[in-house]
């Protein structure tokens, strides 16, 4: 079948890019370079999967192909947390902070915020997902404004430390954090697994999903929690890559032209790995680390979106 062949091709490409990234120009210092590259590839696979999975599902729940989960304010909250640490304790503190502690603090705060937001919105009379987005965007803007305000007040040298965390980067991923992230992801995956069968039906819209016997509100709430956890973990691990999810989810839809989430999700994950591994390769070998990967991802994503818009493709 055509879809299977496309998937195979993506799988091969993802493997090829990862291998290329691992071994290209590895030189004589194999024992030093290889483990470090391995950590990066692992981080690429973890975050790539988290972001692709959560964006595809978020778009299905909202029945909207131009939304991304970071719209509920998680990225801005992450920036606020980093800025606040520097603001209160100084830049050295952020750099020296025990990695695990910092990670748990960031993930914890982001998930907590998401839970509070969901609780607030779902308790309201007007319980719908667009209302959730609206409140999320307002919170996000609020967080960004406070961050900007604090950034204005801190010392320019310290600001550059904050600035580093504004862009996603795989260059200094910490290997202790990979383990925790992987465990959180696997647990989340186990929790999510029984709900995967609902996704195809949810894509038909809320009314059809209810008609077909899905406990809609409960399932949506659970998915949102899963999405919040995954986005928080990947953000805390490498930093915000807002555009990646939007890019890979749309390419997956475009490429597979199907409603089946088995293809869409796996496809998006592979595309995400291809993009990140390719992007990281370019960052390291073409630009010799002079630009962060999120710049490349956003550039490619932006061009792709322009293309979509120009084509006036009504199928997204």
């Amino acid at each position, binding site marked *: 079948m055509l879809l299977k062949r496309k998937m195979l091709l993506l799988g091969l490409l993802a493997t090829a890019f990862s291998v290329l990234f691992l071994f290209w120009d590895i030189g004589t210092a194999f024992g030093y370079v290889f483990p470090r590259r391995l950590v990066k590839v692992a981080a690429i696979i973890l975050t790539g999967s988290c972001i692709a999975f959560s964006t595809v599902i978020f778009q299905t729940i909202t029945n909207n192909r131009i939304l991304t989960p970071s719209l509920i304010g998680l990225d801005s909250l992450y920036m606020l947390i980093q800025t606040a640490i520097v603001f209160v304790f100084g830049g050295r503190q952020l750099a020296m902070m025990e990695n695990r502690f910092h990670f748990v603090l960031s993930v914890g705060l982001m998930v907590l915020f998401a839970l509070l937001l969901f609780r607030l919105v779902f308790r309201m009379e007007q319980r719908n997902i667009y209302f959730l987005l609206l409140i999320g965007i307002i919170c996000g803007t609020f967080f960004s404004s406070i961050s900007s305000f604090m950034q204005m007040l801190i010392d320019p040298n310290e600001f550059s430390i904050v600035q580093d965390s504004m862009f996603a980067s795989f260059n200094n991923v910490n290997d202790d954090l990979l383990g925790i992230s992987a465990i959180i992801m696997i647990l989340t995956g186990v929790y999510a697994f029984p709900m995967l069968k609902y996704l195809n039906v949810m894509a*038909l819209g809320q009314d059809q999903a209810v008609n077909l016997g899905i406990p809609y509100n409960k399932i949506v709430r659970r998915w949102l929690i899963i999405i919040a956890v995954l986005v928080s973990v990947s953000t805390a691990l490498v930093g915000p890559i807002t555009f990646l999810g939007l890019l890979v989810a749309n390419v997956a839809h475009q490429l597979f032209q199907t409603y089946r989430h088995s293809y869409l999700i796996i496809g998006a994950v592979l595309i995400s790995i291809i993009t990140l591994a390719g992007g990281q390769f370019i960052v390291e070998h073409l630009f010799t680390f002079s630009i962060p990967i999120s710049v490349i991802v956003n550039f490619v994503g932006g061009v792709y979106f322009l293309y979509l818009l120009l084509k006036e493709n009504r199928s997204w």
Partner: protein
Amino acid sequence: MVEVKHVSKTYGSKKVIENLSVDIQPGKITSFIGSNGAGKSTLLSMLSRLISKDEGQVLLHGRDIHSIKPNDLAKELSILKQSNHIDLRIQVRDLISFGRFPYSQGRLTKEDWVEINKAIHYMELEEIQERYIDELSGGQLQRAYIAMIIAQDTDYVMLDEPLNNLDMKHSVQIMKSLRKMVEEMGKTAVIVIHDINFASCYSDRIVALKHGEIVREGPTEEMINSEMLKEVYDMDIPVQLINGERICLHFK
């Protein structure tokens, strides 16, 4: 039997349905009629748990529909809304196959496919079953959705303006298949319908709504007359018996 007990619905400060009670008799076609904004769709959506109600209860076989497990309810009662636009790359056949979700949770069995093919045949969709839904006309899409509801095979079938977008031939086809489902399989249909003559020719009971309240209800023969029409639509409409059917002449 489905019993609606004292339901109310308010949007903002606007009472859309007020303290409304009605019994849906099993094994019959019941038509909800009334002018635009009378509250027909709202009532149907509350009946079928698509929207919440502010007050009151809907009972299916004596049980509150919210106390029934969603998946079990989906095998008893199905609902198709007035408009169903989605942006999804899906073939007609696959769309119809979703009607089996309550039974097989997405893993379609042989029996499921039998039901799906029956539904396709019923709605005469064989020729377009491989087409993608974004390539269909409005009426073809409507028929595909109705086929999905047929594949769902529930005792209670609720359709909000099922004749939306359909030509004469297919309107008649759908009304005839509804009658067949009611008579041969003992199903119960509740429809919202604007074409008063379809309501007159095919339904057993008529419930007339106005400003969120029932103004009249009863068997079709007792309902279709100029006096009722005047009350519901504020129009003077003569009714004539043609070939044994009560036909309303509302065009002039």
